[in-house]
Structures are given as structure tokens and as C-alpha cells.
């Protein structure tokens, strides 16, 4: 396990598979806490209005007012103490703030989050909040290589980012397009041999995100990437004649991410 502070927690399974959890930073967590704080305030406010409503009828009887006030005090305490515990338990490590900011509490070993872990990490907020505004917890979070506040450390939990995961839609960028490189399978093979997964990823990501780029930036980016691939494998002029840099990169990606068999089966002529 890496001892250096990082925003990724790698977990190696007994089968030798490594998967990563992206750790949430103190600023995002503080924002999530702010949302949760506001949510508890709203709950307390709603409770106050509800109690006030009942108090109108109960004010005539002394003991009713007494029990109503007692209920109010206990309910406010329960909301402040139990809000995080209850939601993290019901929503599998998430509160309203964490859900909105796509954060989640997880066991630091990647195991199932348990109720006692949730309770401990939330009760130990009392220590993390010292002396005010989570100063102790914030410092601990900055120092900790897993971005853990004291409550997380004691409960053996981490707060991770849970970005929305979408599988790439390769059909949108590859399917149904004529690829002039396929006429030169030996050069395609050379290209596949020389290209690294990282280079292939850059080309694929450039195509996936091309619509999000400014027109000028888009032209420049594909020009650079195409120039790089031209150096890796040289296709004859008739294969590259009159095609744009973007089309060149598309052909490269198509050649790299499709097997020859699939290409020959699906290629429209």
C-alpha cells in the first residue's frame, strides 16, 4: 500500500485484482456537510412549526405543554445526532449532502459498511468539530494519506467520490464509418503493435469529447494527435488523401480498438 498521500485508494483483492476508490477532498466534504447542516436546520424548523401548531391546542393544559416542550428538546437532539447516522445507514453511506455531491462513505478495506462504523464516525464528530468548524477534523483530513478525519480513522472508513459511471458509446464514434486504413492490414498491424494503451486512450477520449471542445481547440488537438500517429505508422497517400486530422484519428482508433475480423465483417464498402 502506498504511504504517500494520494487522492486514490487502491485495494488489492486476494485474487490479485486491484481496484481504486477516488477519495474525496476536505473542501468537497465540507460542502456536503454544509448541505447536511442546512437540511437539519430545515428539519428543526419544520419541527418547531409543528410543535407551535400543537402548542396552540395544548397550552390550556399545563402537562401537555410540558411534555410537548420535552418532546421538542429530545427531537432536536435526535435530529442533530441521528440525521447522519440514519441516512448513511439507509442510503448505503450517503447523506443528502453526500448524495448531491456524489460522495459516499465506504469501509477502508473495501468491505461492507457496518452500522457500528457509521455510528462511531458520526459520534466522533464531537472530537472532529473541536474547537470550532471542524478544525481538528479538517487538519486530520489534510494530513491523512486517506483524507480521513478522526471519526473516519476510528471507524476505519473513507469518504469516496462516486462519479456517475457511463460505459463509452463507441458506436457513436466508430460504427458505420468507412475506414480507408483497412485496405492496408499490414500497416494497421504495425500501428497496433506500436501504439500504447495510453496513446489509444488519448485518441479515444478526444473523439468521445470532441463536441465539448471549442472549434479552434478541436482542430489543434486533432492536428497534434494525428501528427503523432503519422510518425508511428505511415499509410500510403491514397489512404490519407483528403481526410481531415479528426478523420485520421478516428481511423486510427477504429483500427486499434477493433479486431481485423470484426472490421472485415462490419466494414461498409
Amino acid at each position, binding site marked *: 500500500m502506498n504511504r504517500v498521500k494520494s487522492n486514490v485508494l487502491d*485495494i488489492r*483483492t*486476494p*485474487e*490479485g*485484482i486491484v*481496484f*481504486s*476508490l477516488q477519495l474525496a477532498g476536505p473542501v468537497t466534504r465540507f460542502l456536503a456537510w454544509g448541505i447536511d447542516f442546512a437540511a437539519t436546520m430545515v428539519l428543526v424548523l419544520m419541527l418547531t412549526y409543528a410543535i407551535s401548531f400543537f402548542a396552540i391546542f395544548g397550552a390550556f393544559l*399545563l*402537562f401537555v*405543554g*410540558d*411534555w410537548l*416542550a*420535552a*418532546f421538542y*428538546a*429530545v427531537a432536536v*437532539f435526535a435530529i442533530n445526532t441521528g440525521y447522519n447516522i440514519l441516512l448513511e445507514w439507509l442510503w448505503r453511506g450517503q447523506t443528502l449532502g453526500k448524495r448531491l455531491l456524489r460522495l459516499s462513505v465506504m469501509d*477502508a*478495506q*473495501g*468491505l*461492507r459498511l*457496518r*452500522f*457500528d*462504523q457509521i*455510528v*462511531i464516525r458520526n*459520534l*466522533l464528530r*464531537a*472530537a472532529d468539530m*473541536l474547537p470550532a468548524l471542524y478544525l481538528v477534523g479538517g487538519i486530520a483530513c489534510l494530513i491523512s494519506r486517506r483524507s480521513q478525519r*478522526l471519526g473516519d*480513522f*476510528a*471507524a*476505519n472508513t473513507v469518504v469516496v467520490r*462516486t*462519479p456517475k*459511471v*457511463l*460505459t*463509452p458509446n*463507441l*458506436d457513436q464514434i466508430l460504427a458505420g464509418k468507412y475506414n480507408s486504413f483497412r485496405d492496408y492490414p499490414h500497416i494497421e498491424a504495425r500501428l*497496433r503493435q506500436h501504439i500504447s*494503451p495510453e496513446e*489509444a*486512450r488519448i485518441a*479515444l*477520449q478526444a473523439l468521445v469529447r470532441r463536441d465539448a471542445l471549442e472549434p479552434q481547440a478541436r482542430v489543434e488537438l486533432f492536428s497534434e494527435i494525428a501528427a503523432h500517429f503519422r510518425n508511428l505508422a505511415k499509410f500510403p497517400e491514397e489512404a490519407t488523401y483528403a481526410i481531415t486530422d479528426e478523420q485520421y484519428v478516428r481511423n486510427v482508433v477504429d483500427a*486499434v*480498438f*477493433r*479486431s481485423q475480423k*470484426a472490421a472485415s465483417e462490419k466494414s461498409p464498402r
Partner: protein
Amino acid sequence: MIIDLQRFLKEERPYWEELEKLLDTVAADMTFKMGLDQARRLQYLYERTATDLSKLTTFASEPELRHYLESLVGRAYAEIHEERNRTRWFAPFDWFFSTFPCAVRKHAWAFGVACLITLAGSIFGGFAISGDKEAKDVLMPFPGLDIDPGKRVEREEKLSDADRLAGMKAQGTSFYFTHNTKVSIMTMAVGVFWGIGTVVLLFYNGVILGAVCVDYIRAGESVFLVGWLLPHGSVEIPAILLAGQAGLVLGAALIGGKDRNSVRGRLRLIGPDLVTLIGGVALMLAWAGFVEAFLSQYHEPIIPYAVKITFGAIELICLTLFLIFAGRTKGLFARRKGRGAA
């Protein structure tokens, strides 16, 4: 070599979706129990997806797909490799009469240390107030405690005609309960500073307790003192000591000492006990708050001191017997069973 990503997706996606669906089913229902076939299928899908992740990481740097598979493998890993019992139905009766006293006894050393620290604080507080009268303002800056004990007793024993706390007793209960529970949570929580925070708070509580006791004893109001404190104090003070016990257990787990487990391993072991202890403390404080509001604040001639003292003494004896003996048979059985399984 780079894999044919599109064919890879087409072939493997049904397995990933099946795994995702199975994991969603398990997560949605806490009582869900997997059959043998389902467990085998989960294992198969997990291994297949893990292999896909491995292939993808080695042969194609497609970050979105990798994150997706990492998320799936992570969730399946948590289900398959979790060896601790899954929480199913909470049994409050069993928890209170067995789990709670067993947790107290399991860490009896910490309870003993909490008692000693509080006692040391009490002795210090007692000496401080007996040696320096001005220390009272510093040690007991609380309304009701800052006045002369004799005057207070005289004033409160005169209030015999009317129920001076009418319409306030339930509020009093809620105040004592919430305030003392917050203090208990803090006492446990600051144990995370290697136990030092808990030691300081226990000592401080002891100082106040010792100062109050000596103040009333010196004023010749010992009977009033016992009659006032014992009904709720016989539960409230042990509750604070149990919170201190939890804080000390937490601190000891962080320090380690001769324990060969890692810090994480030690914390993992004590986690359920900490939650049990603080849960028990909250229940005890609810009772103590009720007694304090409805009984402790009434004195002679409304309620004879003998009645109050007897009530407090019975509570203390019952609590002691409860913590020593409750759940013992089951605890022993559980230990034997554990050894047998090992």
C-alpha cells in the same frame, strides 16, 4: 496489444449487468439471504468481472469503463469477502440484557481505570475546596451550586406547599437526558486523542463531584447531599464512567501496547463494543434524567430523605448486579462456541 473494445463490451456487458442486478438486490434488502446457487453465481460473476477489469487495465486504458468495472468489482468484493456477521434484525431485549453488560465486563479494566481517574479528580476537588474557599467559584461555576449549601437546604425544605416544578418536570427530564448524553458522547469521542481527552474529562467531572460533596459535608448537609444525588447519581455517574470506559477502550486501541494486531484491526474489533457501550449509556441517562426531574429535586418534607436514599441505594445495587451477572450464561456459551469453531 489492445483489445477489441467494442466486441469485448458486447460479449461481457450481460455479465456485468447481471452482477449489478444481483448486488442491487442484496443491498436493497437487509434480510436477503442468498441460496447456494446464487452464491456460486455471484462468485462466478465477480471473478469474471474482475478478470475483465484486469484485461481492461492491461490492454486498454478506457477510464470510464474501468471506473464502472472497479465500482462493480468493489461492491462484489465487499459482499464476498466480508466475514463479519451481517446485521439482520436488531433484538433490543437481547441487546440490553446480554450484549450491553457483556461489553461492559469485556473491558472491565477500562471501567476500573475510569473509576480511579474520577476518584482522583474527586479527591483533588475535595482538597481544593476545603483548602481554598475561593476555589468554589472556579470549580463549580454552575447555578445552584454556587450558593451556601446550608442556605440552599433551608430554602428548598421550605418549598413544601406547592409543586414548584409543576409543568417543568418533563422538560427537566429532556434537558438532563440530552445534556448528559452530549457530555457522554464527548467523553467517549475525545478518547480518540489516545485516551488523553477522556482522562481529562473524567478527572474534571471527578473534581466537580468531589468539590460539591466536600462543600455539603463541611456545611453539615450530608443527608441532604446523599438524598439529592443518590436517586439519579446512582445511575448517572456510572453512565458517565461507562462513557469514559468507551473512550479509554478507544484510546487503548489506538495506542496498542502489547496487542499484535494492527491499529485498524484493533479498531475494527472494538467498534461494536463502543456502540453498545454508548447506547447503554444513553438508556441509563434517560432513566437518570427522569429520576432527577421527578424525584431528586424534591426534598423533605415532601419526600423523606430515607425514601430517596433507599431508592438510590436499591438502584445502585440493581445496576451493579445487572452489570456483573446479566447475559453471563450466554456470554460463556458464546465464548465456548467460538473456541469450538476455531
